[in-house]
């Protein structure tokens, strides 16, 4: 059953990174667009994300609930040491969700739209950066376990773990990744002859992902961050990273040819490989602290808890996944039909 739970943990992490990430990215893409393109993007985002964005964000709740039920000791370090960036992420999630609804459901269209748009764009950028800083914080090696905090300052225990060059670089990398995912998604969704906006955005995002990723690695390597040094010595991690890079070729071929489903699959696969690379190099020592590495599997919940959780997840998955699939599919079909009608008229 532990494997079922681990599967759902990684599965929901992956889906949150891909679906939630594309969702955040949409706001980032909108932010870095010209004023005219912003309007187009706003409409496209509503059409694409409207029915599914809430579902996209529930993955993080599933993720956090699995963590606290099955891996309480691990969860404890996360919420104590990374309290501040997590709170900022929460405020970002709140403002972003509210802004999304306000800008599409306000009965009166007036100047307040500008405020909603600004709120949406800024929180779309800030939230993934801080989320990335949380990921970065976990692997930065700056975390101090609470048992050892007595002689240390507030800064060293509660700020430095996430507010350091390495973690910030990871944050920027994650935000770039979101923008990349989103641009690839939006290419297939734009109105006729507007794809070029997003193809250009996808190209820029690819370059930014590559640069931020490279700088993060180089910085980590030069400063001997154990996350990076272990990573580069792991052949599987290296292979996964190279594969992920090589996938750019079929990705761009499919984008150019207008094969939107395939291009999305390739982009999703790339993210999967990046995640996989990080996991194979380190699993199960997901938290790297100053003194030791904390294994995800240390102090896990008792067998009875894992068993019930595993069963709940299987049942929940059996109810939710077909529903979600059907939701995505229905609206995709509708969109294709609409597009067809538009072009035929």
């Amino acid at each position, binding site marked *: 059953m532990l494997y079922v739970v681990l599967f759902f943990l990684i599965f929901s992490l992956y889906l949150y990174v891909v679906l939630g990430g594309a969702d955040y990215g949409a706001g980032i893409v909108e932010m870095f667009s010209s004023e005219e393109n912003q309007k187009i993007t706003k409409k496209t985002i509503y059409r694409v994300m409207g029915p599914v964005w*809430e579902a996209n964000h529930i993955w993080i*709740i599933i993720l956090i609930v699995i963590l*606290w039920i099955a891996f309480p000791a691990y969860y404890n370090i996360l*919420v104590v040491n990374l*309290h501040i960036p997590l709170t900022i992420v929460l405020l970002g999630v709140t403002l972003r969700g509210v802004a*999304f609804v306000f800008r599409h459901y306000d009965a009166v269209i007036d100047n307040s739209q500008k405020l909603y748009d600004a709120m949406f764009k800024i929180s779309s950028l800030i939230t993934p950066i801080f989320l990335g800083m949380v990921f970065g914080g976990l692997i930065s090696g700056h975390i101090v376990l609470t048992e050892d905090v007595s002689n240390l300052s507030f800064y060293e225990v*509660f700020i430095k773990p996430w507010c350091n060059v390495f973690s910030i670089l990871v944050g920027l990398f994650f935000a770039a990744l979101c923008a990349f995912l989103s641009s690839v998604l939006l290419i297939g969704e734009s109105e006729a002859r507007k794809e070029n906006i997003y193809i250009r955005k996808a190209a820029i995002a690819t370059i930014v992902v590559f640069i931020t990723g490279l700088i993060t690695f180089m910085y980590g390597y030069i400063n001997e961050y154990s996350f990076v040094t272990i990573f580069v010595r792991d052949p599987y991690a290296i292979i996964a990273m190279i594969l992920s890079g090589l996938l750019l070729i079929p990705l761009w071929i499919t984008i150019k040819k207008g094969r939107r489903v395939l291009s999305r699959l390739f982009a999703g696969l790339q993210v999967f490989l990046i995640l996989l690379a990080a996991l194979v190099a380190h699993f199960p020592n997901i938290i790297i602290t100053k003194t030791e590495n904390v294994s995800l599997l240390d102090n896990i919940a008792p067998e009875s808890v894992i068993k019930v959780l595993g069963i709940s997840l299987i049942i929940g998955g059996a109810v939710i996944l077909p529903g979600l699939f059907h939701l995505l599919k229905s609206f995709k079909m509708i969109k294709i039909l609409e597009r067809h009608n538009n072009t035929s008229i």
Partner: protein
Amino acid sequence: MENLDAARLQMAFTLIFHIVFACIGMVMPFFMVVSHYKWLKTKDELYLTLTKAWQKGVAIFFVTGAVSGTALSFELGLLWPEFMKHAGPIIGMPFSLEGAAFFVEAIALGFYLYGWNKLPEKFHWFTGVIIGLSGVASGILVVAANGWMNSPSGFDYIDGQFLNIDPVKAMLNPAWFTQALHMTLAAFTATGFAVAGIHAYQIFKGRRVALHTKAFKIALTFGAIAAILQPISGDISAKDIAERQPVKLAAMEAHYNTEKGAPLYIGGIVDAKTQEVKYKLAIPGMLSFLAFGDFDAEVKGLNDFPEDERPNVPMVHYAFQIMVGIGGVLMLAGLLYFISLKKKKWFANRKYWLFFIALAPLGFIALEAGWIVTEVGRQPWIIHKIMRTKDAVTPMPGIVVSFYTYILVYTTLSIAVTWLMIRQIKVLNAQNN
């Protein structure tokens, strides 16, 4: 401000807001599907207009409820890491099921909001029903987790260790049913009267009376039925608490000394120092009867419990009085509503509408007061008789900063949502009949 106080205030504050958003998001889908059903049956355009207006409300409140709920799911750990470290695995089951129910709700909402004229009529309507049912299921599951804090079960507590954990038994703890029943009815009462009050105001002002009367009737029918049933559920809860958490019952009644044939105090001002309740109305033997079904039964007083195991008595007592008082008023108002359906001319009387406008906020005030009774009444424990709240709080200093930040954000959020709702209603009224 102490870290513990700041953490408690932040938790209380965010919960107070979340409860309002969550209740409306949970109950309004029912109003919406009834109106939608009437539209499908009668093809009266007013019902369609109403359904679409309410659906916007549902969408806005679902999102505010969802994001404030996401924040809360993190806050549990961020503020009370020691509690979650031990309790997380035990009460994880209702939370994981709640996650699933919530997911179903989000999927159904996607179908419903974007499915107009696209999905088959009946299937589309049915997705609305799913929104409502999964919302109520979510609410019940979360309350079940709270019930566990009041009546911890499903484990053995040996030498500070939680052993032999049984998550199913923990979820189906002794308090889950009474609390969930009471809360579900309260949600329907509060939302029913609040929504009805808003539409009553529109009728009072003479705006689109036909439309708003339909809305008023749908919302208040739910609210009135729930309000009339609520005293029964309250009675079950009182008897349950008398047995499980006698100190909470004693605090609710500001009942200091153990006695047989204990009187019921109505109102009054509590002096915690002298242990006196001034200006109260006392009904002899009534507390014994309500708690144990026997006028002579012995009811334990606060002095039977160590001082460091008692909650804040005046606060719990006042909150309880407010809850019960309002509950009584709303029950009578519910009965009055059903009588008014037979006496059509009441609807022409402006005082009738004024009355229901005045009642609009009361349900939510009672609901919040009820949660103050449960939560403040549980103190000083975070897990009744197992773990103290002060031992669960985060070691990170400076929670007061996050507390003020949350106050700022949530207050702004509520003002914005209210403002948005006023705009919705204005636009609705401006449309032609």
